[in-house]
């Protein structure tokens, strides 16, 4: 399985070397990479190449809007972030070790303009800390055309708000994005994620509701056409009471594409009054689409409201008949229906670009 040969000297800041409870970092990573949980997360995508690529040379992401008042960009970390999780994401931690420096963005005042992040290649890890009560719009896109990885940690202090839009529409042989979001009390996080398949695309999203009354919304539209692949692994943890999370993920898999969605909701003991919803819908079109979707629920508290649904289907015959009965030919009707299916999950400031790439037409004015 995953052979990760860690270098003998890690460019690791002291605080990271101190993270593991026991043993040296390389040992702990090694263990995490070989754990059954890790194997489960990498069941449908071969981890070897992704893990090996964690030591590839990295470039800085292009960052815009960083010179606004209240925004500070640094290249070091002074303390571990609450979201760092060796067991859940040893590869992401490995990237932190291999990076010669990281990008740390501290946002201490609400900004007028969004912070814009573009990944033109294999980019260095980013840590984004949003101070209490601060609102931030984050626009992220990837246009790497070679193998690339990203790893981003976002920490939202109490009552912070982040609206995060992310487009991963680039064509690359392989692309891996790791995203970890940690929410403190009353914080709000929204992710609008738009994604196309590529040679092998992997998105790991780990959202941790770690304060009372935090709210997270994840809306994602994906299209995997032809010999492309997409593997999305989402873990949403409710650690504190009265959190609300809502996830809506629509993926179209067409003509031999391969798509995996694994949505895990973990409601910890004591997280009473949690409301967690997840809906994953997959639409298969054409021949030989492969779709794996697995809902996973772990609930250790009574008094929660939780719904978790996954469907795999084809175009509705009733809807198709309705459109064709109005004179629209079959091919055009199918196109309208598949576009409609995705459009339900395309929203936010990066929607237009996503519509053009995934739906093939811009938003209708009406």
């Amino acid at each position, binding site marked *: 399985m995953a052979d990760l040969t860690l270098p003998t000297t890690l460019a690791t800041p002291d605080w990271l070397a101190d993270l593991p409870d026991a043993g040296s970092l390389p040992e702990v990573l090694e263990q995490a990479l070989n754990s059954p949980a890790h194997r489960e997360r990498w069941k449908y995508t071969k981890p070897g190449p992704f893990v090996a690529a964690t030591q590839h040379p990295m470039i800085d992401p292009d960052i815009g809007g960083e010179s606004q008042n209240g925004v500070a960009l640094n290249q070091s970390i002074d303390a571990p972030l609450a979201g760092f999780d060796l067991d859940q994401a040893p590869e992401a931690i490995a990237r932190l070790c291999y990076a010669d420096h990281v990008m740390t963005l501290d946002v201490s005042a609400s900004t007028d303009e969004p912070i814009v992040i573009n990944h033109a290649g294999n980019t260095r890890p980013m840590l984004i800390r949003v101070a209490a009560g601060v609102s931030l719009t984050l626009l992220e896109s990837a246009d790497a055309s070679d193998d690339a990885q990203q790893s981003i940690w976002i920490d939202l202090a109490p009552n912070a708000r982040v609206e995060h839009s992310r487009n991963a529409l680039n064509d690359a042989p392989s692309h891996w994005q790791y995203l970890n979001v940690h929410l403190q009390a009353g914080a709000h996080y929204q992710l609008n994620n738009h994604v196309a398949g590529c040679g092998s695309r992997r998105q790991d999203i780990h959202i941790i509701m770690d304060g009372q009354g935090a709210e997270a919304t994840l809306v994602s539209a994906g299209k995997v056409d032809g010999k492309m692949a997409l593997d999305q692994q989402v873990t949403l943890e409710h650690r504190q009471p009265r959190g609300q999370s809502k996830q809506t993920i629509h993926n179209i898999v067409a003509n031999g594409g391969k798509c995996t969605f694994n949505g895990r909701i973990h409601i910890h003991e004591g997280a009473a009054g949690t409301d967690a919803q997840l809906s994953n819908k997959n639409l298969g079109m054409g021949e030989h689409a492969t779709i794996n979707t697995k809902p996973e629920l772990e609930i250790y508290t009574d008094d929660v409201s939780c719904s978790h649904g996954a469907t795999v289907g084809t175009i509705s015959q009733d809807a198709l*008949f309705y459109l064709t009965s109005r004179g629209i*030919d079959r091919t055009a009707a199918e196109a309208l229906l598949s576009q409609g299916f995705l459009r339900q999950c395309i929203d936010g400031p990066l929607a237009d670009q996503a519509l053009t790439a995934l739906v093939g037409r811009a938003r209708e004015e009406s």
Partner: protein
Amino acid sequence: MSLLNVSDLHASVVTDDGPQPILKGLTLEVKPGEVHAIMGPNGSGKSTLANVLSGRPGYIVDSGTATLNGQGLLELEPFERAQLGLFLAFQYPVEIPGVSNMEFLKASIDSLARARGEEQPNTATFMKQVRELAGSLDLDPAFLKRGVNEGFSGGEKKRNEIMQLLLLQPKLALLDETDSGLDIDALKVVAEGVNRYRSAENGVVLITHYQRLLDYIVPDFVHVLSNGKIIESGDKSLALELEAKGYAWLT
């Protein structure tokens, strides 16, 4: 010459237990300018007739013919039937989230225009026309931005069907229980819409359970469909008689 000509039509619905014969020798002729009402007990085959004529999947035509303006319908794809001028107002209109009403209507009108070799309407003019039509049917034009029938009430869905009828101007309209689920005011609005559509050139087949609708849309003929066949035909007075006596005396 007749507009719609259905002759000795036998058709089955496909079920898990194999095909079930529903239409058992149905004959109906509609001439331009005529309105025919079809009444009949639940399960007698009224929706089946509308579905078979418009080409809904899940039905098998066993024998018989159906033509619109002399052109055979039964071999055609649903969109080709629509392009010939057939229109079905659905008993249960489908909700299609993500496809806006406006976009759907534009796709429809463009397809029909292309098929007729006509020019596609200019988008701005078209949108204005649609908004006016919506208004005339007491439909909030804001609905046009929403998904097709998405979150519409039962009555709003039926009014949306009539809006499409008025927009697309088919040659023959099959209205399947467009009156059910409507309150009195909405019933008048819908009936007024159908009357606006009526002309000397086109025809209407009106499937209904209620005599009440026929006070507003006065039919030229009333037929009783029972067990897959038309067993009685008459004028509007037949509907009144049915209202008073039910169907039992006929069967």
